């Protein structure tokens, strides 16, 4: 009753407004009926009423063709037996609930032990023999399910969870990455070292606010029962091999995500070359809009990065680097080398009308040497672009397309020759892509996009490789990914717990 009153108080104002608004409509209905009756149209009204009733009745009676969700097969005989065993174990341990964490660990061990004996009577499969992703999934499920049930059945525990989540976010915001990384990092290592202990540790996180020994007896009984039932459920799934399927689904989803437009790791394309060779113009040509400022004077600003979705097939971050210059004070060469090492695809632009290429060659050699010296690293594919072909002799002529095999046209011959010379000088195997990048004479962008498309698989492999390497080098990276996963899972589980 009290809750009804509360509801009424809460909705009094909107309810009043709704009633007031509907009064004219209701009056109108009454007046309309009165008018119909007075004008002897009552038969028409009754007829239409009958027809509409029939239609409604027919719709209601129509057989429901929507497929019923298939009933989950929970009932192989082995499962039944295992569940019975677990129920008995739950009753048994609820009478003597463990008083400390090691007790819970022993309990978990027993659950896994008994379940495995039911599923594999001859060979004993220990929990340690499962792959880490399976155990990770199982752990996550346990904490999720135990938490959800505790929230539903133990009113005090939702405070704990909320605070826990809040703590995580607080730590995150206060200390940047450091602290939650440490917390999550140790969690992962613990998992690898001893999955069962990790399960319990997860469980402890749920109730850690109250020391296990301090929980009231009744609460502890419930907690233990829930713990055994939920851990047992997981153990059944794990030994029945269901996690393997679940894992495959997850891995598949991850892979699908990796190649969709929302891939976690986009390909990083570096646009490099001497000052004023046309880097910004090329970037703009790929972006199809002017985003990078183009100037005939060397730009001194920092490099710019743009994200594009090229032919809506791959996600690319284009990095318009600072031009190479012989002015050693700008350190352009060094920064370009560092930049190139962190890229997945390099577009190297050589100006057709710039025969001075020692700077390009020195830088390219340094980049190649870096990858030769580190055989574990993969050199990103490089695409050579020959820009400013419109200024090749005869410079006053520009009438593309040019057939490069047309020996009769001086421009064609020069373009073809320049491609060979530049590719050879800069030690590229593939011929350069001839391009003109000025807006008024833009030419051959499609060929470049094709070339990017061809190298995209390699580049993507390198992007993943780079990400993996980064994660191997720093715990932070893995943990970051886990945290991101944890974040989504927290979000997912929150509404459920509110029900």
């Amino acid at each position: 009753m009290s809750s009804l009153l509360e509801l009424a108080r809460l909705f009094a104002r909107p309810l009043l407004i709704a009633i007031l608004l509907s009064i004219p409509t209701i009056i109108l209905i009454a007046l309309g009926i009165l008018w119909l009756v007075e004008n002897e149209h009552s038969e028409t009204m009754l007829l239409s009423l009958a027809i509409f009733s029939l239609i409604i009745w027919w719709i209601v009676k129509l057989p429901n063709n929507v497929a019923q969700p298939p009933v989950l097969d929970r009932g192989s005989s082995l499962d039944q037996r295992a569940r019975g065993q677990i129920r008995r174990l739950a009753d048994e341990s609820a009478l003597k609930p463990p008083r400390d964490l090691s007790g819970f660990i022993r309990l978990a061990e027993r659950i896994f032990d008994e379940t495995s004996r039911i599923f594999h009577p001859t060979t004993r499969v220990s929990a340690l023999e499962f792959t880490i992703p399976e155990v990770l999934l199982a752990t996550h499920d346990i904490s999720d399910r135990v938490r959800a049930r505790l929230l539903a059945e133990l009113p005090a525990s939702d405070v704990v969870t909320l605070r826990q989540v809040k703590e995580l976010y607080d730590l995150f915001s206060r200390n940047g990455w450091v602290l939650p990384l440490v917390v999550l990092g140790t969690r992962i290592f613990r998992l690898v070292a001893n999955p069962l202990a990790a399960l319990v540790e997860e469980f402890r996180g749920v109730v850690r606010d109250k020391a296990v020994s301090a929980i009231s007896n009744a609460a502890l009984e419930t907690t233990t029962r829930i713990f055994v039932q939920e851990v047992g459920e997981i153990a059944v799934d794990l030994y029945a091999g269901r996690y393997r399927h679940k894992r495959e689904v997850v891995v598949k989803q991850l892979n699908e995500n990796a190649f969709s437009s929302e891939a976690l790791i986009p390909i990083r394309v570096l646009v490099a070359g001497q000052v004023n060779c046309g880097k910004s113009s090329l970037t703009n040509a790929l972006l199809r809009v002017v985003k990078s400022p183009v100037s005939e004077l060397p730009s001194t600003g920092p490099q710019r990065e743009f994200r594009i979705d090229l032919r809506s097939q791959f996600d690319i971050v284009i990095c318009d680097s600072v031009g190479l210059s012989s002015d050693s004070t700008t350190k352009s060469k060094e920064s370009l080398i560092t930049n190139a090492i962190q890229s997945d695809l390099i577009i190297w632009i050589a100006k057709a009308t710039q025969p001075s290429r020692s700077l390009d060659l020195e830088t390219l050699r340094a980049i190649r040497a870096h990858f030769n010296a580190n055989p574990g690293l993969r050199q990103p594919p490089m695409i050579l672009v020959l820009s400013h072909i419109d200024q090749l002799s005869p410079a006053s002529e520009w009438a593309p397309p040019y057939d490069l095999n047309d020996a009769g046209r001086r421009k064609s011959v020069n373009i073809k020759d320049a491609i060979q010379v530049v590719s050879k000088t800069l030690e590229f195997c593939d011929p350069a892509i001839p391009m003109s990048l000025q807006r008024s004479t833009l030419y051959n962008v499609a060929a470049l996009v094709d070339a990017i498309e061809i190298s995209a698989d390699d580049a993507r492999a390198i992007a993943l490789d780079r990400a993996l390497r980064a994660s191997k080098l720093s715990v932070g990276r893995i943990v970051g990914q886990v945290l991101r996963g944890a974040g989504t899972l927290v979000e997912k589980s929150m509404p459920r717990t509110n029900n």
Partner: protein
Amino acid sequence: MFQRFTLKVSNIVDKLRSLGREEHAEDMVPFPTPKRLGVPTIWLLGKTGSGKTAIIKSLTGNLEAVIGSGYQPTTREATVYDLPKSNPKIRFIDTRGLGEADYDHSKDLRWHEQEADVIMLVMRVSDLDQADVIAAVDAVRSRKPIPLIIVQTCLHECYEDNKSHPIGYPFLGDDKDLRNPALPRKLRSSIGYQRQQFDGIKGASPIFVAVDLCEDYKPTDYGRDALVNALLGLLVEHAQPAERASALGSRLRHLWPFKSQNSARRQEARRAKKRADLTSTLREMFFSEAGEKP
């Protein structure tokens, strides 16, 4: 006696030179005729593809000068062009371009600076990365203060949509060029940027000349006259080839304590006459040779 002494000195100098040459011999392309003629020598220097050989071809009318196509280095070793060929009055040294892949220029620079009376620094107006070249010239001029002409070439690469030279060669070689509305905006800003790079350079301030010798644009010797005039002005001002031949003699004359006002005036007049002679011979030479150009 003095003559004998002079001879000895020149012998020693020659020997020293040849020693130096041997030292370099294994590292560098042998320089064809390294011996000084006593005529003014112009050293063309610049990045590869900047148009050094094209300038020589235009100035000397020498058909043997091979001009590149613009996308790869052409002049792989230094070449000497004398004008006129028999009884030379002026000499051009065309050098290998800087910044060519796999070419270390430092030794060649040291070699050429001994010969040069004027450096003609050539740069494409669209190529704004000249830091290396400027550093090289700076190093040379800190050792020997050689007068400097900067030739900005390939103007057409900075033309906007109008594909023809600005009418009537409106370049003055000073800051007025940067505000001249007759020049395309892109050209002005590039010219200005390049000239600005020489603001703090050591020694006498350089002379700037803009030329375009590309054969696709008419006239094909756009700016040649301005270049010749700048060169002649510099030569007449700095180089006094006749006096250099008896350098020791003039030095001794300076030691002579009794100098009359008259003799000084006479000397000045003599010098002025020599300058005028040189100017007229060179001018005649350049402009007649130009006529023979194909």
